[in-house]
């Protein structure tokens, strides 16, 4: 019966993989891009000058609050993300009765020195990849539900893949290049097995991050419809009190930030100001994620007008901490830069595992032909080459769209989706081999030419960055070149037909 079990798992792996392969490819790719969300956001706002040394969080937030006292007047709350050792700007999100995006929210990037958005080009930055990763640009809550369902299927695909792969360790170091289907299988297995702990962890923790949406029944069982009580229980110490309707100036936020940094022994990240300008205003400051694995490990709340400490909370309940740890493992904001790069590399490996799986599906069945096969083949081209092209196009748009253009962030996003649709159409129209070669060539060109384009339009080229010690910009451009190079090699591999595999000479015994 072992055989029947393995066979059914192989069937399950095949079909679950095909069902959500393209969607998962997109989720994995944008998730990998989101590892460097602050760096991407910085790169997409080249007007913010590079500064060496740590940023003064208190000063930056004080300046931001001064600006928001007029620009964000009337908003029920201001959500501020402090600049830190990675992000160069203060991000401010708030909703006003008029204007803003579809939900009425405005997102601004504020200069850390002046607190003003003037002169900085309007863009979503790395936020675009981050949000696409779990919302898929589909209205709430359907995008998140779809992403969560895809993650669930991914976990099934992983488990069934592991069960199917009989000789995991015997094949651990094996890669047989230039042997057609065998090679694709080896690549798919190698990428899957070498980073297997990561794949399992990221999929499982990803499901965890959306758990309140997808598995709300535990909450319903214990809290019924009393959601306020639920939020209070989950995150005590956050005092959101109703507005008094009495105007009162906001206190010294910079001083509160300094106090919070002292109390929480390090950087802070989120600053939420509820009812700014009202006598019942509160300022809640969260601990930064880089000091521990768990996400949102602590927060302090001050009275918004007087600056008096209202509550200080550090989570210590075991199950809650376990959940926060899962969440923190997924967003990976902790640890040294090496860890972040490892997340990035493993994310690329996951994306490539999915991509190679999709290609393997067609390589295995090329003899049978048929409409379904052709559909998969064509869609593969449009997604596996199309998505990297679209991502590059998004960055190209950031450099080329006029800075003063209205609705600029939406414009960049539109370029992303238009490019993707065009690539999918091209994949359908062009003959198979030409489609792949053209797609890979376009990928290579788009990414290789990005750094020169950036240097030409912004003056912050790779040499300038290197001389100024701006490792972020230099690193971003380097990764761009590396990605382009990777696609160029893949393209070359496709263009030159594989030579027959050489049989290794018999080794003589020593």
């Amino acid at each position: 019966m072992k055989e029947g079990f393995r066979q059914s798992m192989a069937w399950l792996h095949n079909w679950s993989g095909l069902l959500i392969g393209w969607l998962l490819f997109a989720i994995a790719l944008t998730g990998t891009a989101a590892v460097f969300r602050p760096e991407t956001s910085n790169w997409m706002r080249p007007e913010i000058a590079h500064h060496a040394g740590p940023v003064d969080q208190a000063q930056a937030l004080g300046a931001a609050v001064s600006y928001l006292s007029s620009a964000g007047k009337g908003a029920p709350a201001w959500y501020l993300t402090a600049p830190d050792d990675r992000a160069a700007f203060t991000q401010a999100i708030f909703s006003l009765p008029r204007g803003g995006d579809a939900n009425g929210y405005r997102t601004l990037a504020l200069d850390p020195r002046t607190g003003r958005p003037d002169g900085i080009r309007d863009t979503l930055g790395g936020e675009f990849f981050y949000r696409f990763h779990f919302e898929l640009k589909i209205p709430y809550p359907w995008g998140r539900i779809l992403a969560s369902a895809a993650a669930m299927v991914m976990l099934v695909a992983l488990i069934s893949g592991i069960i199917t792969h009989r000789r995991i360790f015997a094949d651990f170091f094996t890669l047989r290049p230039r042997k057609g289907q065998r090679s694709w299988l080896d690549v798919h297995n190698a990428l899957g097995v070498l980073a297997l702990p990561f794949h399992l962890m990221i999929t499982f923790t990803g499901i965890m991050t959306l758990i309140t949406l997808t598995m709300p029944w535990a909450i319903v069982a214990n809290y019924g419809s009393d959601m306020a009580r639920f939020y209070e229980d989950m995150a005590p110490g956050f005092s959101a009190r109703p507005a008094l309707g009495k105007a009162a100036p906001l206190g010294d936020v910079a001083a509160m930030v300094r106090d919070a940094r002292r109390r929480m022994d390090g950087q802070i990240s989120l600053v939420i100001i509820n009812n700014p300008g009202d006598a019942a205003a509160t300022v809640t400051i969260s601990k930064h994620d880089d000091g521990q694995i768990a996400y949102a490990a602590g927060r302090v709340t001050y009275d918004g007008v007087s600056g008096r400490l209202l509550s200080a909370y550090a989570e210590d309940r075991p199950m809650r901490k376990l959940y926060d740890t899962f969440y923190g493992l997924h967003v990976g904001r902790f640890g040294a830069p090496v860890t972040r790069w490892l997340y990035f590399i493993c994310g690329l490996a996951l994306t490539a595992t999915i991509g190679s799986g999709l290609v393997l599906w067609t390589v295995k069945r090329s003899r049978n032909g048929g409409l379904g096969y052709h559909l998969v083949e064509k869609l593969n081209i449009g997604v596996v080459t199309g998505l990297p092209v679209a991502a590059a196009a998004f960055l190209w748009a950031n450099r080329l769209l006029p800075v003063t253009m209205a609705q600029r962030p939406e414009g960049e996003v539109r370029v992303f989706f238009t490019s993707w649709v065009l690539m999918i159409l091209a994949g359908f129209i062009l003959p198979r081999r030409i489609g792949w070669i053209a797609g890979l060539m376009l990928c290579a060109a788009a990414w290789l030419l990005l750094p020169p384009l950036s240097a030409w339009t912004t003056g912050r080229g790779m040499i300038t960055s290197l001389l100024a010690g701006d490792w972020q910009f230099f690193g971003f451009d380097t990764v761009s070149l590396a990605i382009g190079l990777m696609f160029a090699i893949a393209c070359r591999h496709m263009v030159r037909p594989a030579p027959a595999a050489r049989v290794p000479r018999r080794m003589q015994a020593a």
Partner: protein
Amino acid sequence: MTGTATALLLAIAGFGGLSLTMARHSRQAAFDGSIIARRVPMRPLSWLLIIASAIIDMAKGNWRFGLVEWIGLAGVAAAIVMLAQTYRPRLVFPLAGAAFVLSLLLMPFSS
């Protein structure tokens, strides 16, 4: 950084050694039948190096961070060995050996 480098080198040495205990890879790497293959207990030694790699990575600073980092690092080390076995199998043993020696040199500097 030195701690991470040492851990990576130890993992490369360990995985390299492990790959050489597998018949197929041992043959390709011209390791089969050599003096070292006959005298040195490669498998236990390789595992020891891998465990040492994990310990060193977790010993610096927060052990939880170290553990997460090491899991990723181990994958990278295994990938390097895999690529060597695929394209330059004869270099696998020298690679593992050099990694081992280098790691010993760096060890005093990885707190």
